[in-house]
């Protein structure tokens, strides 16, 4: 259990250093992806399986794909060619990312019981049912405000990306 924390904490810190130290933005995005996946693994350790799933789908899925898309859009064809040629840092990062995903999968198949700490927590702590109950009972107004925020961001994003700004 302790090993699980140290493994993914080390991975997150190493990948974080890589994120800010990489020369090109694309390897940097790869490092950020590793940070997100390592954090998702740590959320499993912290009795938050739902947050771990959201981390993988929203952060590593949606947001990072958008970032990589814009990176590819904003680099000239010559730069893009040099980005795609695999150098050493790419390979090291690929190995770390692969280890991270394999670790997450192994943790998932092994079952949550062996990962999470055996502390005295309320029954069903972190389960999606308890989460939804709390979310839609106590934080309904906040949820609606967040949806308005997302709508405003959607309209603003479309307006700003228009050609004749």
């Amino acid at each position, binding site marked *: 259990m302790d090993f699980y924390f140290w493994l993914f*904490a080390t991975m*997150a810190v190493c990948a974080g250093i890589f*994120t800010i130290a990489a020369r090109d*933005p694309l390897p940097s995005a790869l490092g950020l992806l590793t940070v997100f996946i390592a954090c998702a693994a740590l959320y499993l350790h912290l009795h938050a399986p739902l947050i771990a799933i959201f981390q993988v789908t929203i952060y590593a899925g949606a947001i990072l794909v958008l970032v990589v898309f*814009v990176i590819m859009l904003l680099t000239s064809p010559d730069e893009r060619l040099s980005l795609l040629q695999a150098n050493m840092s790419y390979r090291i990062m690929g190995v770390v990312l692969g280890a991270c995903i394999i670790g997450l999968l192994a943790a998932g198949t092994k079952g949550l019981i062996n990962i999470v700490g055996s502390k005295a927590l309320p029954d069903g702590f972190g389960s999606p049912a308890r989460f939804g109950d*709390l979310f839609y009972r106590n934080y309904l107004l906040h949820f609606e405000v*967040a949806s308005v925020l*997302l709508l405003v961001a959607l309209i603003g994003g479309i307006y700003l990306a228009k050609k004749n700004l």
Partner: protein
Amino acid sequence: MVTLTHYVVLSSILFGLGAIGFLTRRNAMILFMSVELMLNAVNLMLVAFSEFRADMAGQVMVIFIYAVAAAEVAVGLAILIGLFRHVRSVDINKFNVLKW
């Protein structure tokens, strides 16, 4: 035994890395990713406190941070594309139109 301190130190390190990256890098895309790194560190801190105080409200806050991060990325990347159209670069030293 992993305690709350471990998680606080880990997320402080991640937040510090994000702050250093934001202040030192000159590529606008990497600045963006540094901000994401800082938001992620805050999420980790919230979930850790939620666990060690046995209060699930911290996990709910993480969902709101996800919404804010998604909005930030959508608007920020649109601004970046607009800037790129004007300047043809992602180097923030070239974004000096508003400089006095």
